[in-house]
Every structure is written in structure tokens, then in C-alpha cells.
């Protein structure tokens, strides 16, 4: 156990954390701004992965698949918001949980009908399919770094849109006082539909971009969903900055948990969550 070993593990942790952020950011947007508990968020992750797999097969290009799977996830998200979620804004959280849980089942069944139950691999573009050596016998896949870079860019972009643009201002305003924003002549319904679509697209992007390294398999969204909620809760509901820090924290906790306390690896993430919530019951940036 030397310094190098710790640095590489830290790199693993940050890289995993960035990917978690990409999925969780959409969840925190929908959860924090619209007040909707969207259990089907993991399904958008799965949708992104499967459409990327399917489009990569059809078009032969991963890049095309990535670009095309984004609007698909966004459209599905928009459709679900307008047709289903919209009816539940004034209802209890429990009703939303029921609806979105039902959606998970529908998505899983649809996935089975359309793509079957087999496990699939997505071919990596040849340019990115190499690793650079870190130590004498360990290399780092370049594609993982590309994922990290994309995640970092998305994080910056989100911060910029929400903090600096007019659209971001509407979103923030809509979250804190819906009636007032409506009175100012802004179409809140459309606004919320868009936010939901963006949230879905972010999860879809995460699924699509992770597909070549994570493989594509039934139920892949369910495992990621729980971690996303952990990230959102740690970061503080609705805070993109919080989700970012929370995700990095969870990525590191998971990585070092496996290496340092392997017997408790499955708890390390939750131990960190419990510790953060003891210190700040509403999350880091509530």
C-alpha cells in the first residue's frame, strides 16, 4: 500500500463519482425543483443504455448512438411528464411514488419485450479503445477518462444554465413560487415538462455513455437508482452543487470501502450517508 496505490484508487473513486453525478443530477433537478419523487429515474438510465446499444448496432457508430439516444430519453421523459406526472403535482408524495414505481415495472417489461433478457456488450469506438499504463502491470482505460470529462462538462454546463441564464432563472423561480411565476406570464407547465425531459435526458446520457464499460443488462437501472437517491440526499435535495459533491463523496466511499474494509464494502456508502446526515440533517447544500 503506497502513495501510488492510494492515488490510483482516488482516481477510480472520482471517476465513479462523476458518473454517479451524471445520473443523480437529473434526479435532483426533478426532485428538488418539481418536488416529484421519481423512482423511474433508473429506468431512464436503462433506456439510455439500451437505445445506445440498439442504435450502435443499427448505425455502427457509438457517437451517433449517443447523440440520438439523448433526444429519445428526453422525449420519453417529456411524454411521461405531460401524460402522467402532471396529474399528480397537487397530490401526496406517496401517489407519485406509486406511479413512478409502476413505471419501473412498465419500463422493465418493455425492455424485455423489445430487447429480450440477454446481456449485451456495446463496442467501444476504436479510437478510444486503448489504455495508458499507470504502473508496471496496471493500465487505465482511456474511455473511462472520456466519461469523466463528459460528466465534468455536463456539471459545469448545468451550473451555468441554472445560475446564469434566463431559463435557469425561471426554473429557480418556478421551484420556489409557482403561482407567482405563472402570474408573470411564464408557462410553468411547459417549463416543468422541459425540466423533467432534461432530467430524463441526463440519466439517459449517463446510461448511454456508460454502456460500453458497464454492459447492458435487464434491471441495470434498479441498482443505480438507490445510489442516486443516496447522492441526492447527501447533497441536499435540489442542489446540483450538492449532488456533485455527494456523488464524488459516494464514489470515493465506495472505492475505499472495498479496499480498506472489504467485509463491510456494501455498507460503506450508507455509513457515509448516515454520518453526513447526522452532521447536516438536510444534506450538504439544502
Amino acid at each position, binding site marked *: 500500500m503506497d502513495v501510488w496505490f492510494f492515488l490510483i484508487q482516488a482516481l477510480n473513486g472520482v471517476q465513479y463519482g462523476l458518473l454517479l453525478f451524471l445520473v443523480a443530477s437529473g434526479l435532483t433537478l426533478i426532485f428538488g425543483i418539481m418536488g416529484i419523487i421519481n423512482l423511474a429515474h433508473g429506468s431512464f438510465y436503462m433506456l439510455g443504455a439500451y437505445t445506445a446499444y440498439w442504435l450502435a448496432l443499427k448505425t455502427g457508430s457509438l457517437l451517433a448512438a449517443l447523440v440520438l439516444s439523448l433526444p429519445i430519453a428526453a422525449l420519453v421523459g417529456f411524454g411521461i411528464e405531460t401524460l402522467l406526472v402532471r396529474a399528480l403535482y397537487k397530490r401526496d408524495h406517496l401517489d407519485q411514488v406509486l406511479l413512478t414505481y409502476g413505471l419501473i415495472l412498465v419500463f422493465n417489461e418493455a425492455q424485455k419485450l423489445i430487447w429480450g433478457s440477454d*446481456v449485451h456488450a456495446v463496442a467501444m469506438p476504436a479510437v478510444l479503445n486503448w489504455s495508458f499504463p499507470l504502473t508496471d*502491470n496496471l493500465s487505465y482505460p482511456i474511455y473511462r477518462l472520456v466519461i469523466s470529462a463528459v460528466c465534468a462538462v455536463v456539471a459545469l454546463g448545468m451550473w451555468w444554465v441554472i445560475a446564469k441564464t434566463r431559463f435557469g432563472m425561471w426554473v429557480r423561480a418556478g421551484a420556489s413560487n409557482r403561482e407567482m411565476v405563472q402570474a408573470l406570464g411564464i408557462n410553468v407547465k411547459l417549463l416543468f415538462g422541459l425540466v423533467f425531459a432534461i432530467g430524463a435526458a441526463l440519466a439517459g446520457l449517463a446510461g448511454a455513455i456508460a454502456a460500453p*464499460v458497464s*454492459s447492458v443488462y435487464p434491471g441495470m437501472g434498479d441498482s443505480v437508482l438507490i445510489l442516486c437517491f443516496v447522492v441526492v440526499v447527501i447533497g441536499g435535495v435540489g442542489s446540483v452543487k450538492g449532488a456533485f459533491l455527494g456523488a464524488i463523496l459516494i464514489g470515493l466511499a465506495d472505492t475505499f470501502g472495498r479496499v480498506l474494509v472489504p467485509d463491510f464494502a456494501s455498507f460503506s456508502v450508507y455509513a457515509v450517508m448516515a454520518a453526513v446526515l447526522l452532521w447536516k440533517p438536510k444534506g450538504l447544500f439544502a
Partner: protein
Amino acid sequence: MDSKPVSRRTILQGAAVAGLAGASGFVPTKFAIGNTAKVKVGIMLPYSGTYAGLGEAITNGMKMAIAEKGGKLGGRDIEYVAVDDESDPAKAPENANKLVTGEKVDFVVGTVHSGVAMGMVKVTKQSGTITIIPNAGANAATGPMCSPNIFRTSFSNWQTTFPLGKVAIEKGYKNVVTMTWKYAAGEEMIGAFEEHFTSRGGRIARQILVPFPNVEFQANLTEIAALKPDAVMCFFAGAGALKFVKDYAAAGLKGIPLIGPGFLTDGVLKGQGEAAEGILTTLHYADNLDTPVNKTFRAAYEKQFGKGADVYAVQGYDAGQLLVQSMAAVKGDTSAQPALIAAMEKAEIKSPRGNFTFSKAHNPIQDIYLREVKNGQEMVLGVAQKGLIDPARGCMAV
């Protein structure tokens, strides 16, 4: 119909025969009910989640075996009742009860996940429902939990990797890292390997366990690189196997040989591509086994389902064969349970993996093959251990 007048003696004889048959439980159901009732076959398999593909392959294989023999069991039509067990051990007793108590099935065929199988077996051991396990290798199912009514057409976890311990020694590996998901199947497969490997002088550098069904391995790959073992022995299946093998290669670890039970490559070899080259595995089956039975089976499966058969399909197929053979022996009389069980115990299954019979604890006595991935193909190098019998440790009931 015979119109001869019936003498009193004939009636008495008939009654005596019927009485005897009744006493020994040999009244065929079709006479008892008047019309032939359907045999209820309960299927408890994962149809969603990581192992959904395995559940499907088993179902396909089983139904195919039964269809090949006329689609009936002992002359009776079949009603299938399937539950999706979601590979969730917590729901296992409930799901098994649904079939046993709720549907009153004659047979239970299930399941894939070892933890779920244990929950299921606890229920069927108590109810006495004849159970055929078409995959889950939990040693205990034919060990401490063994029971006259519980059979397995797949393998015990112990069987799949015990021969690998010797293989590793013969390859000259002295210092090995083992890695798997932290659940029964993984721990038992690693355990059997370690048992054999260390008894011949091998050393386990570290045992790495990751939570099931987590597929993020990067941290542990870094660990392996730092440990620099002679080889890595691991068990993953399905999506986990696909991802682990790819991650392993991408991390530049191909210099350290990868060995394991055949589940590491079975069914996911195409997706693993070049990353799987050279992986050495042991298993009771290989797609490329050069036997007439295997070739016929594979061709028929491919034709019917539009994709290649895998080891799971084979295990389902053999579960189907076991049902067909034993039900034929008792002419469809499910109430004659002792005779039915005796027929199952005596069954010789002409499996695509090679013929096998059952051990005292109802686990297959089978050859374990040594396989290696060469040019994207699973090549059979030979038999790693012939006629391997699971030790059935702790089995008292049979």
C-alpha cells in the same frame, strides 16, 4: 367392451387388486378422477433482473425436452404455472409457497440464484413437493438440506471449481487471488477451489468479495495489480462476467492469467470478445462438446428459439428429460410419490453434456471439462475430472 357376464369371483379379484394398489398408493390418477387431470408444473425462475436471460433459457430447454417426447408427462397434459422470483432471496419463501400451497403444483422446477434456491427448498422440503433445481448450485440443497423429494439437474457449486484447484497447480500457479460476489454461489465456488488448491500446496494471496450484484470492479482491479499474483480465480455470471472480463483486460491485467468456473464466459463470450482470449475454465458442459447428442440438441434449440443454446438451456432440458422419464415410469401417477422418486433416482439422463446419473443426495454425477477460449471459441481441452461426485457434506435425510 367385453360383454361376458361378470362372475362374483372376477369382481372379488378386481376388488382385491384395487385394494392392494390403493394401499401401496398405485391408483393411477386418471382412474381416480375419471378424466385425465393435468399435471401442474410450477416454475420458479428469474424472468427479470440480472439473471432474466438464464430463466428464459432454462424454461426454453425444459419445454423443448417435454415437447420432443409428445408434450405430455406420463400421458397427461401439462399446465405450467410460472412465478418470477426476481433473484430475490427475501421473496423466495413467499414465491415457493405461492406454487406449493396456492397452486398445489405437482412439481416445482426452480431456480437460478443459490440464495433463492435455499428459501425455496426449505418450503418444498417441508411440503414434500417434488423439486428439480435446474441451476442453483448451493451446496446445501444436496447437502444439509437434502431430501428425498429434492433433485438437481445442474451442478453443486463445489463440483464446478473443485477440479480447477488441481488445474491451477499443474499450470504452476502458486499464489492466487480469488474474487467473487459475496453470496452463496460465489463463496462456495471459491471455497471448493481453495480447498483443493491449498491442499496441494497453493497459497491464496487474497480473497476479494464484492457486493451482489454490483458490477463496479475498478477498485479491486487496482488491488489485484498491486498484489501481483500468479493468477486470478474468479466467479461472476451474466452481466457481471461480461463486465469483469472486459474491465480486467482494459486494466492491462491480461498478463495475469484469469481462471474460474465456466460461468465466467458462458453465454457472454461474444460480448467479451478479445478480452476473453485465454481464459481457462472448468464446467460440466461446453458449447463445443463434440457428441451427437449435443449437436442434435444445439441444432434443434437454435432452430426453435433463434439463438444458440447455453449451459442453462442444457440444465433446463435435462430437468425436462427427468420429468418425462420418471412420469413415464409411473404412467403419470403423481400420487405414487415413492415410486416416482425411485424412478427419478434411477433415471439416466442422456444429456448434451454427456450421460449422467444421480448421486445418493440427488446431485448429478458428471464429468467436469477443462475449457479454454481460443479465437473467440470455447475449446474443450479435455476432462478435468471424470465422474465427479459431490461429497454431499451434511446430508442425512437420504
